[in-house]
Every structure is written in structure tokens, then in C-alpha cells.
């Protein structure tokens, strides 16, 4: 009976829901960040209707973002895309940099320089190296730190609501 239920019970409930793991929670954080950042004026002129999150490097399952794709933030549509190299980051408003890039992170930050892009990571030491928001784990819970200087350089304004929840890196 229980074998029957196990296999057919699921059939009744189409298997479209996902497991609630670390990356889903982190993805939810990243989506929420889009709501609390003000990009420089002019960024969204000319009919741009999306906030684009680009995912660079590996170590983070991109499909964790699937659910948030198409949701809105500040009236714009949140869109994710994977990019293979940094030559076409012009269209990115947010850039997630995976743990695989930890040895190249300084170069990457230099490439982006002062572009108005919210850089995000979830690797130890990224914030110190100039990534604006870095996620980390504490007591099995997701936390984040913000590098204020990097944020200023990018010309972004982060809402105080977000700042008060973050660990601040000067």
C-alpha cells in the first residue's frame, strides 16, 4: 500500500514544486536585492523595462533563479541570463559572480570598474575584494555583507532597509 501511495500519490500532485535548499533561498535574496537598489538616472531610459541579472562563473545552480524570472521589482521585470564572458556586460544591471571565479575576482572587479552594476557573490572574501553584496552562512541561515565603497564607486544607492540587515564592510 505504501509503495502504491508513494509512487501514485505523487502523480496526483504534479511534481512541479522544488526543494527548498540553500540556493533557492539565496536566489530569493538576490531577487529581493533588486527591490532595494537605485541605479543612476538614465539607466532605465529609452524604454528599458527589465532589471537584468547576469550569472557569470559556475558553482551556483542557475535554475534556482527560474522561479523569480519574470517577477517584477520596482516596476521592472526581473530577468536572468547566463553570460560566458565579460565583454557583453553592458546590458547587465546585476552581476552574480560564482565561486569558481575566486582566483580571478580582482581582475573581474577591475574590468567592471565604475560601471553601474550591482555585483553579487556568495564566496568568502568577495566583499573585501570589491564585490558589492556578498552572501554568507551563519547558524544555517543566509546572511549578507555590503561593501559601501564599492557601491559608491558603481554609483548605486542601496536603501537603508537593506543596509540595516547587512554586515557593513568599509
Amino acid at each position, binding site marked *: 500500500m505504501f509503495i502504491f501511495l508513494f509512487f501514485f500519490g505523487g502523480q496526483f500532485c504534479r511534481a512541479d514544486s522544488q526543494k527548498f535548499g540553500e540556493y533557492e533561498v539565496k536566489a530569493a535574496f538576490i531577487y529581493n536585492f533588486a527591490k532595494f537598489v537605485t541605479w543612476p538616472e538614465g539607466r532605465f531610459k529609452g524604454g528599458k523595462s527589465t532589471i537584468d541579472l547576469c550569472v557569470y562563473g559556475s558553482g551556483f545552480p542557475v535554475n534556482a533563479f527560474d522561479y523569480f524570472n519574470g517577477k517584477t521589482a520596482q516596476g521592472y521585470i526581473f530577468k536572468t541570463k547566463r553570460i560566458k564572458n565579460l565583454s557583453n556586460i553592458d546590458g547587465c544591471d546585476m552581476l552574480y559572480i560564482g565561486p569558481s571565479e575566486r582566483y580571478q575576482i580582482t581582475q573581474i572587479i577591475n574590468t567592471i570598474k565604475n560601471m553601474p552594476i550591482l555585483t553579487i557573490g556568495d564566496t568568502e572574501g568577495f566583499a573585501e575584494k570589491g564585490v558589492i553584496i556578498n552572501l554568507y552562512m551563519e547558524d544555517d541561515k*543566509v546572511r549578507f555583507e555590503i561593501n559601501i565603497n564599492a557601491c559608491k564607486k558603481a554609483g548605486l544607492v542601496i536603501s537603508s532597509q537593506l543596509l540595516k540587515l547587512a554586515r557593513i564592510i568599509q
Partner: protein
Amino acid sequence: MGVRHNFFNNESLKRSILISFLSVLLTIFLQHFCYGLEKEEDPLSKLARLNLEDLMNIKVETVYSASKFIQKTTEAPSHVSIITSSDIKRYGYRRLADVINSVSGFYISHDRNYHYLGVRGFSPPGDCNTRILLLIDGHRINDNIYNTAYIGNEFILDVDLIDRIEVIRGPSSSIYGSNAFLGIINIITKRGKDINKMEISAEAGSFDTYKNRLTFGREFNKNMDVLISASFFKSHGQSLYYKEFDNLATNNGWADGADGERYNSFFINTRYRDFNLQGAYITREKIIPTAPWGTEFNTHMTNTTDTYGYLNLKFKKDVDKDTSFISRLFYNHYYYDGNYLLNRPPLVRTKDQAWGKSWGAELQYNRRVFEKHLIASGFEYQDNFLQKQRNYDESPYVIYLNDRRNSNQWGIFLQDEFTVFDNLVLNAGIRHDYFKFFNGNTSTRAALIYKPLEKTALKFLYGEAFRVPNMYELYYNDGNLTQKANPDLDPEKIKTYEIVLEQYYKNLQLSLSGFYYKVKNLIALTTDASDGLLVFRNKDEAEAKGIEFEVHGKWQYNIETKLNYTFQQATDKNTGRLLVNSPRHLVKSNFFIPIIENKLSGGLGFEYSGKRKTLGGRYAGGALITNLNLLSQNILKGLEISGTIYNILDKKYGFPASGEHTQQVIEQDGRCFRLKLTCLF
């Protein structure tokens, strides 16, 4: 033999009624949830709706015990299962043994005094649960006389105070030393902030069983957190029938009023800044109805009392993001008091007692070096300043054993987690242990963890472990009447090989593993043919091989399902025969079904253990045990009510008995229930 009960009388009728009732009920639930409430949302959309403050309170699954630092379960160098406090509530688990019995690959036995644990087919009758290391927040609970991992009501911590349990399969001697032989169970306790003020809980169950618990817990500020709890348990027990004693002189086989049990336990857990002070204490008394060791049948005079307590002071400091430091200072106290009514003649009460006292310290230092290496190193010292066993008749006074010793032991370990590539991790560890009574022993472990895809992990595991004989195995004798000592015993050793595949697929989490375990010098209670006395001997080799499969699903409307299957074959390597008390098949399955969101839920558990060979060469039949728990929360604010029926189908089953019993098989409880109320203030 049998347990007196009075529900239905016709066995097959009641079974078919219950099966059909349950099937219909479950099918209705599932259909109702899927088609009836089409607009109900799935968990991810709930995640999307949460604001940042809420998100910051979501816990993510990680594991600590496998290598003494926090890791994701897929990166742990072992095959790991985690059970949380919500599982304990959902399925109505009463004691640690109930929880462990739901974990894939594990099985329990119970001789109506203690609960015993088996894994990978090893659970020889007469063993005192010495091959599993039991830890509470990293503190060793196995005592220093019998080295027992207590998992029944004699376990020191009320299960309601458990935050989560990490079950780690395979040897971990390279980290934890002796007894981490077949696996470790690490209990992570609740803190004050998990209780938030006050909890009062009252339970009543079959056979006049009552339990009360009072817990106070609070986080005063970021620096200070306090939890204090007390639990009181009392059970009158059942009248039990044993056909082996069915004659006029022994009450026609009925043991009346000889199954009583009670315990009082206390727990305190405080944290101030980086310091954590923990104290626990239990005293538990059980009357033994089975008349072991040739004692008189049908008496409450044969009973045991186990008292255990510890204090553990821990200091944990994260020096910087790459370096952390832990030091511990602890004290353990154990006292066992056994009363056995024997007709020598005359009728005498024999006292069997043991005292174990120890203190110890541990230092651990973790550091990341060269970016890709995470090093854990540590040193542990334990001084067993009292290890005493005594056995005597009260009146006339005759002393058979008075053995008083002390010993010390230390261990030093080093482990490196080397991230070779982003998807390839090598975890290797080595530990050296020294014991006063033995030569040193060195254990190693190596794990290669490969993640070819984002949701796939492949683990290749090799482990070594050892177990030093305990004081009981080495020095116990009852004046050479039935049992003699063997101070020449050698430690047992094990080598294991295991491959684990972990795969996430949509809403499913799958794991598949194959294992081969080989034990040398296995210690077992045997009879010396020359004098007929029981004695512990290093037997030859034993081996176990098998496969294990588990699938864990999370569905819409928060339905959760789990199914696992283990096939294992544990044999004596010389004779090729299957080991005693070693089922070849284990199947467990759980269903959690919310009936009214956040208010009412059902938890259904199935546990099947295949037939097990008894000491006499017969078999204790396999049995499928079904438990159902209904849990109501939030209907009245601060009130939690749960009702559980255990062994719904009233299945008759039993476990192979150890050598001191006349019985071949000790029968277990039939259908019984429990009602539990918890108030939160």
C-alpha cells in the same frame, strides 16, 4: 507469549478494515489537495513572497559532525541523514530509538529493558551498543564502563529538547576515536531562543504511561541564552506472557506488574558570549519482566537503575573568517545499580553495580590555508578516574566481584579538506589514539567527492575504525559462576568501502549507496567449551555488504514523502553464515500530509524489518509496523496537541534475545497510543 489487549478480536478482519480505511483516507487527502484546492501555492512562491527579514530566518540544511566543521550534506565525507525537531513532532517519536528506527539502514532491538541499535547488519545480541558513538553537541555520551550509546528512555535528553540529529554512517574513528565504529549520532540540542519563554507538556499513553515536561528558555540579548528543562516519566507497563515460563510454579507464564519504568531527567544549556555551559542528568529505573540470568520469574525485585550526568563547558571562537578555535572541558558521571532476584537457593538479591567517572578536555583548531585547504586538527584527553564494577549477594553476604580501576586515554587528529577543483573535493583524515591498557591505534579515512553536475554528487569513501574492549568485556565476572573475565582481549577493527550517489531531481532527493564492511577481531560473548563459562572472545572476521536506496520528495501543499530500502548481508567470514539479529531487508517509509495548513497534519510511518536469526538458530519473523500521528498546532494559540497510534495493525513481532534470556525472541508492544498536549507561553 503475547500482550493482553482488547481492540478487535478477528485478526484478518481488523487488518483489512484498517488497510482499506487508511488507503481511502490517504487517497482522498491527496486528491483533495491537488484538485480541490487548485489555487493553493507551492513552497517556492511562498519563498518569493517572503521579505528579507523573513528570509533571514530560514534555515538551510547543513551538517557538522561528519568532519567537525559545518558543511553542506552533499559535501560531507560520509553518507548522512538529518532528522529535525519538526520530524519528531510530525511522527510522534517518543524516544531516540523511535527516531533512529526511521533512518535508512538502521534497525533496533529491545529486550524490555534497553534498546539496542543495529546498522549494516551488525547488532550481535549481548552487545551493549558499543559500535555507535553517541554525541550531544559533540560531547561523548557512551559511558566508560560499558561504552553504551543509550537510545531508549534511558537516553539522557528528552527528545522534545532535540533541535536536530545528524546520523553519519560508516567509521569516524579518524576524527572521534574509539566506538565511532559503524557510525555516529550527533544530537544538536535546542537553545533558549528555540523555546522562547515557557513550555509545559503533558503526555498520557497506553499501559498507564505518563510524562510531564517543563521547559524554560530565553535569549536575553545577543550575548546570553538560557534553557532549563525537567522531564518526569512513569509507566506501569503491561502484564506480559512468556510461554517459556508457562507452568504452575511461575504464574502460568504471566509476568504481572514487572514491566514498570520511570525516569527523571534534567537539562540546562546556557550560552554567554563565546562560552557554552551544558549540564544533563537522568536517573531511570526499569523492572525487568523477562527473567534474564536465571532470575526468578514474575517479580518486581529484578530491576536496573541507570544514572548518568555530565557537565560540558565549551569555548568557541571564530578568530577570523579562515580560523576558528574550540576548547572543551567536561565531567561525566555514570552509576548503574542492578538488582537480580536469584534462587541459589536460598532466595537472594544479587547486586550488580558499576561506577564510572571521568573528566577530560579537548582542543580543536580549524584553519583554511593556501585557499584550497581546510585543515581541522585537534587533541583530546580523558581521565577515567573511576571505573568500578561490583557484584555481590546481599544476604547471606557473598562478594563475587570487586574490580576498581582507572585509566586514561588521549587522541590527536588531523584532517584536510582539499578542494582540488571546483567540483572535486578530497577529504582525508588521520587520528592516533593511546589507551592505558592497549597499544596505540591509528585510524585513517579518505573521501573523494565529485560533483560532475550541479545537482549530482558522487562520493567514494574509505574508512578505518577501532573499538577498544570495554571494562565489562575485559574484567567482569560473577565469581566464575556463569561468566569469567578476559583481560587479554584485543581491540576490534573495521575497514569499510562505500560508494554514494546523491542526486537532486526536481522535487526529489535521491541517494544510492553500495557498501562493503570488514571487521577483524570482533568481540562476542561466547561459551568456553572447557568450563562452560560465558566469556568475551575476539572472534574471527565478519563482513557485511549491501546496497541502500532512498528517495525523499517534497510535493505541493507541503506534502513530504520518504522511502528507503536497504539490502544487507552480514556474515561470519569463516562459516559463511548470516550473523544473528541481522535482517537482510529493511524498508522504511514516511508520509507527512498537512490537512489544514499550519493547523492540522498527519504523519504516517511504516517500518519493515526482515526476519532475523536468533541465537538458537531459529528466526524472529519480519514485521511491518505502522504508526500514525495527528498533530494540531495553532488552533488555539500556544497549544499543540498530538495523538499517536503505534503499531496500528497490532502486529505481533519480536526481536532475537541475547544469551542471558531463556526466550529466543522477546515480543514487542502491540497497538498502543499516546496523547500529548504542549502549552507554549
